[in-house]
């Protein structure tokens, strides 16, 4: 072992406060140190060539640098090592600038400290091990889970870049929640008008394969090499044969509440999700089908001109390999029945915002007419209750659902435009309009007549009059008094919630959820679309409440991440990963749940002991996944787990030198 120690002056930055010659002299006496030098600027070309020459001349195999923070120039020196044919992890840096010369005022003491720090680095370098990053090929195919606007956008972007994408949707059509909306804020574009072209584009794109009525069954593997099983539920309609003529739907005798219209209309047991559904082929809802319930009927099968109805159809399992997975599973809306004070579910005229949205929608259950579910009359006075179940630690979700302020503004505007003689009252806690043109939109709502009352509603109750109206009891913060409003219709801005199956999916993908059940990004600021699991990205509301433009841009962000990955064609892990000493490891796997990247798995090894071959389990690190945090090594009782670059031996050597 031949170690060279180089102490940088950093001009006067280090030299003024640290006696660099003394540091070089003191460390030069350490075992294995064969060469020391103090240099004016180690990072400069001159400094670099000094080190290079010394490596050649003295056959150095390890280099210790006393200079600025390794966070500054570690790569500079590592590259130099590479050029010299030495492993970059044979360079060790003592931070004698940021941690010493710059923060101290007593030169003698600073010099002693600098000597300590360089000695510590030398001691660490005694036990340095060469490290290499693992690289693995990437399967250049993406899976997008969720066919809402975020999923569609992500799929389109990746497909446009020339990579195949599979788009998975659990409903029978893509489109997601946006398909249910009437208009979009703040421009009041017709939601369907801007969405359907994208849906069609996705369906017809040569690089996109749609898997509707399908769910994720199983995921294994890791970045670049995910192996996924998709369950395609039986639609009972042969896709190849069906022409989408709709005869079966017309003739089907079974009627059930239409979930798409929030129960404000009926659909058939064989149905398409909505008129512009993509793919526009019906599916048979076996739970409500008379044939499946009683064995009699079969009208659809009889009527179908292409004999596409197949009652014997079974779920299909499709297996595929992907390089990246984009999660865009969206959200659900909270059913506010638990908030008893709002009377939802007890009085038909207390509805949710999405119900109102459907009512306002020209292709909705009422063709855009407003009506009071209790008597079908047009409502004149509508009270909106904001944060119904959001920002409510007591009986709801503690977070803000983010979009309610804007869509309620949108509703009041639409109502005022379409039905100028309706009055809108909005009870709110705060109105949040962060976003381009949102404040103006809100202003417009107020201007157009919406009355915003600051204060939460404490109770909604039937007024008991002949019209069966409702009395909303609230408080007007401006006037500072309790305020009651007799309302024809009460609209609750219900809370956005993660999908029911979000947790299960998270488990399959190895990603984590926050306390509210939304998926956690890898870093709140700097890795907002990545997850802890490399190669899995988040788009849309599954990561947290957001509006359409945010969801779309996040989706494009995930697409970019996937495209970057595919373009590079391989994944390179960090070199400083965990390492298992199989001799010591007992395979107890206590480390497995500690790993935030699911990089640890159990593996059987064959061992010859006492003349017999025996299988035994050990922990095994997937070096492509491991990021080298060392939480496992901090836990491992036998010390079988170690971190490259920060081995137990190295850290002990450092501690022992100080």
């Amino acid at each position: 072992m031949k170690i060279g120690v180089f102490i940088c002056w950093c001009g006067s930055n280090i030299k003024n406060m640290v006696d660099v010659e003394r540091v070089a002299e003191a460390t030069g006496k350490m075992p294995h140190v064969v060469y020391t030098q103090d240099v004016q600027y180690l990072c400069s070309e001159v400094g670099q060539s000094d080190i290079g020459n010394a490596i050649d001349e003295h056959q150095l195999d390890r280099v210790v640098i006393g200079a600025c923070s390794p966070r500054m120039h570690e790569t500079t020196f590592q590259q130099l090592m590479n050029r010299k044919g030495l492993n970059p992890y044979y360079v060790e840096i003592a931070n004698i600038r940021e941690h010493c010369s710059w923060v101290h005022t007593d030169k003698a003491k600073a010099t002693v400290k600098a000597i300590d720090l360089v000695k510590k680095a030398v001691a660490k370098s005694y036990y340095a091990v060469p490290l290499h990053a693992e690289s693995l090929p990437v399967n250049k195919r993406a899976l997008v889970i969720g066919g809402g606007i975020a999923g569609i956008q992500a799929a389109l972007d990746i497909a446009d870049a020339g990579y195949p994408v599979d788009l998975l949707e659990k409903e029978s059509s893509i489109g997601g929640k946006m398909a249910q909306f009437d208009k979009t804020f703040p421009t009041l574009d017709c939601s369907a008008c801007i969405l359907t072209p994208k849906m069609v584009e996705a369906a017809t794109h040569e690089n996109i394969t749609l898997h509707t009525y399908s769910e994720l069954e199983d995921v294994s593997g890791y970045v670049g090499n995910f192996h996924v099983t998709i369950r395609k539920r039986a639609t009972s309609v042969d896709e190849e044969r069906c022409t989408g003529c709709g005869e079966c739907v017309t003739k089907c005798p079974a009627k059930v509440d239409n979930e798409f219209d929030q129960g404000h209309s009926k659909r058939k047991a064989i149905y398409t999700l909505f008129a512009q559904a993509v793919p526009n082929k019906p599916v048979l809802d076996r739970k409500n089908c008379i044939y499946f319930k009683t064995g009699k009927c079969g009208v659809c099968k009889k009527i179908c001109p292409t004999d596409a109805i197949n009652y014997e159809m079974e779920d299909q399992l499709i297996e595929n390999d992907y390089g990246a997975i984009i999660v865009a599973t969206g959200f659900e809306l909270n059913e506010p029945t638990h908030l008893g004070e709002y009377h939802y579910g007890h009085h038909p005229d207390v509805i949710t915002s999405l119900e109102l949205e459907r009512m306002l929608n020209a292709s909705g259950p009422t063709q855009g007419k407003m009506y009071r579910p209790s008597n079908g009359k047009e409502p004149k006075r509508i009270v909106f209750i904001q944060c119904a179940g959001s920002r409510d630690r007591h009986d709801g979700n503690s977070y803000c659902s983010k979009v309610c302020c804007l869509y309620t503004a949108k509703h009041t505007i639409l109502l005022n435009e379409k039905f100028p003689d309706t009055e809108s009252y909005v009870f709110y806690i705060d109105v949040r309009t962060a976003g381009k043109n949102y404040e103006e939109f809100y202003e417009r709502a107020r201007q157009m007549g919406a009355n915003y009352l600051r204060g939460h509603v404490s109770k909604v109750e039937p007024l008991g009059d002949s019209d069966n109206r409702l009395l909303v009891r609230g408080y007007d913060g401006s006037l500072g008094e309790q305020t009651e409003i007799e309302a024809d219709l009460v609209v609750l801005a219900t809370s956005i919630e993660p999908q029911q199956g979000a947790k299960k999916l998270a488990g399959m993908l190895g990603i984590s959820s926050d306390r509210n059940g939304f998926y956690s990004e890898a870093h709140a600021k700097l890795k907002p679309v990545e997850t802890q699991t490399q190669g899995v990205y988040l788009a849309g509301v599954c990561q947290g409440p957001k509006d359409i433009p945010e969801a779309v841009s996040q989706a494009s962000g995930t697409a970019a991440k996937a495209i970057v990955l595919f373009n590079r064609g391989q994944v390179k892990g960090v070199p400083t990963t965990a390492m298992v000493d199989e001799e010591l490891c007992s395979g107890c796997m206590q480390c497995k749940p500690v790993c935030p990247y699911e990089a640890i798995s159990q593996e059987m090894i064959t061992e010859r002991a006492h003349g017999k071959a025996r299988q035994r389990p050990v922990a095994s690190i997937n070096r492509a996944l491991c990021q080298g945090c060392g939480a496992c090594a901090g836990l491992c009782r036998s010390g079988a787990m170690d971190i490259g670059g920060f081995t137990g031996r190295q850290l002990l050597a450092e501690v022992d030198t100080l």
Partner: protein
Amino acid sequence: MMQDTFEPKIIAFCCNWCSYAGADLAGTGRLKYPENIRIIRVPCSSRVDSALVLRAFQNGADGVMIAGCHPGDCHYDTGNYHTRKRMMLLKSLMEFMGLDEERLLVKWISGNEADRFKDTVESFTSKLKKMGASGKVRDLRCAK
């Protein structure tokens, strides 16, 4: 008299992403703090196990500091949650054995909290000065 001349030895384990960066920033900002601290870089505070802490004390450290990202900000998502769990246990056990658990300091310092880093070093150093040299966990062969 002794207190004036006694210079405690502090060994600090700083996570690469937050606390080490915070210490770097203190340097970049030319903040001044006592020379007593020696920083060891670790990828994450959860890399530090109790053996390293005790070894530092054995070797004559008067104080040991473990600094990591604030909870929720861990570069590796959950590392500092493990740190706080393990170190709480270590501190309780030290306290239970009558050892000076206050010589082990666990602190969350982010990459931009140079001031906090400086303040922490200053207050820890002066606290240790008041406490005097550590004797309870020290291997006497490291006494000199």
